């Protein structure tokens, strides 16, 4: 931005700004440079010995450690173990949570029967069940699948249930006016209306699943990203801990982003979206 153009008045600036790369991506670029600045400061602070890398690591050390972990292949086992645990736990939660949520949203009696359990378990931090889960399933993969399942199933179930229950009254009137039976009302109105909430449940479940992976593996495991971080941490390999954090964060952001995009696509289906 040169200052020589400043007396040339606003219109010129507005015209130019429309075409400038900076103006079009200002928010993104600001964020990008903020992070870049932070990383540079971090690196410099370590290089100048202002802070001790034993505690903080540094961007270059993390990159080196990450590169090494992939280069010598030591991380692949942990990655695949965590990925499989996630896929199984999350997949099971979807398979159980979605249908059960739909049924509980639709059948009042079933809901009355199960809601106390759901509420109690939804309110409990599921990670508190970890000792029990270890007793039941041992320290191998199945206990992590179980804790991920428990972490994830309730947000999915509760949101799906809410989705089925919050039907636009106008839609019900239309369906009834056309002589819809209860099952037709369910299939043509309740089910599609529940999709946006269901997707929100899937997205929220994702966050819980990642917590389940990390904490579950830290608590008792023989492999996995959480386990790797736990081991690295107890031997003061701060760089390696940071690599684990970045992997988990990146996975979380990527998966959340995908689900957000799908959610956005179905936003119009939301009952309260219409005026």
């Amino acid at each position, binding site marked *: 931005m040169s200052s020589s153009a400043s007396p040339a008045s606003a219109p010129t600036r507005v015209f130019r700004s429309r075409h400038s790369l900076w103006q079009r991506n200002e928010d993104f670029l600001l964020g990008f440079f903020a992070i870049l600045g932070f990383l540079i400061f971090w690196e410099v602070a370590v290089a100048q010995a202002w802070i001790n890398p034993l505690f903080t690591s540094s961007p270059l050390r993390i990159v080196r450690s990450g590169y090494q972990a992939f280069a010598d292949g030591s991380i692949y086992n942990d990655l695949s173990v965590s990925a499989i645990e996630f896929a199984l736990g999350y997949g099971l939660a979807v398979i159980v949570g979605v249908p059960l949520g739909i049924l509980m949203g639709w059948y009042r009696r079933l809901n009355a029967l199960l809601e106390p359990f759901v509420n109690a378990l939804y309110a409990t931090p599921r990670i508190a069940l970890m000792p029990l889960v270890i007793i039941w399933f041992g320290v191998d993969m199945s206990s992590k699948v179980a804790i991920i399942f428990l972490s994830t199933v309730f947000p999915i179930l509760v949101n799906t249930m809410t989705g089925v229950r919050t039907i636009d009254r106008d839609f019900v009137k*239309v369906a009834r*006016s056309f002589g*819809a039976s209860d099952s037709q009302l369910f299939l043509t109105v309740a089910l*599609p209306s529940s999709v946006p909430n269901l997707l929100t449940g899937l997205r929220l479940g994702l966050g819980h699943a990642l917590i389940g992976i990390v904490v579950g593996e830290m608590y008792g495991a023989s492999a996995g990203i959480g386990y790797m971080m736990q081991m690295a941490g107890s031997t003061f390999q701060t760089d390696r801990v940071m690599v684990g954090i970045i992997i988990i964060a990146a996975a979380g952001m990527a998966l959340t982003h995908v689900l957000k995009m799908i959610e956005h696509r179905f936003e*119009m289906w939301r009952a309260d979206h219409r005026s």
Partner: protein
Amino acid sequence: MTEARTKKMEARDVRLDFFNGRMKQELTVLDGIDLTVYEGELIAIVGPSGCGKSTFLGAVDGLVRVSAGEIRVDNRRIEGPGGDRAMVFQNDSLFPWRTVIDNVSYGLDLQGKLSRSERRERAQSLVELVGLKGFEKHYPHELSGGMRQRVNIARALATDPELLLLDEPFAALDAQTREFMQVELLKILARAGKTAIFITHQIDEAIFLADRVVVFSARPARVKTIVNVDLVGQRTLETKMQPRFRELYDHIWRLIEEESARTGLITSAVGA
């Protein structure tokens, strides 16, 4: 109105009470409605705000049960919603997960009488009837308010009802679109050859559209007067300029004003 014409809908002494659970009191909404609608007629119902016009229409559609009296369509007593009637709701209430053509065929899909291809064909012809050819694959949020109401009307007509019920369908539209849609509705109904009951709170809309305007009293609603709309010639946008249109407007407005004043909705009748 010659009595030789076929009665399409007949309401006899229709009474409707609502129990208000919060106030713990019974509220009489309709109190002895007598009304006959003949085949091919377009009837508009007007009345003071909150008088129960929409409730009456809901009763004709079968969505609300009457407390006493009876409503007959084609001489069959109404017990619930049925394929012989279809409602066009005030909010367009189009399903956002269905395209235009799928919204139109909704009633047909529920009935399941026709094959899939027959339903498509029928829906397609209705989409064309309301002038939305080329928009079949669009979703409701991609359409303007006027277009959405066209879809809404097409959806109601798709099941080929004997009696079309329209509950303030143009209330949410802007003034220009509304006028335009009024003309369109008359064309559509003429092409489809349907009997229709139209609820509105706009007197000019009622006169413009209807063969007869039914004025409801304040709640509990009764039929106060039925005004014959004796306008000459085809209804066009110029119709509203006719002196007779003005006269009818003033006449009906005074009737409604009278009712509103009687129940204290307005404090005093202003000289018109």
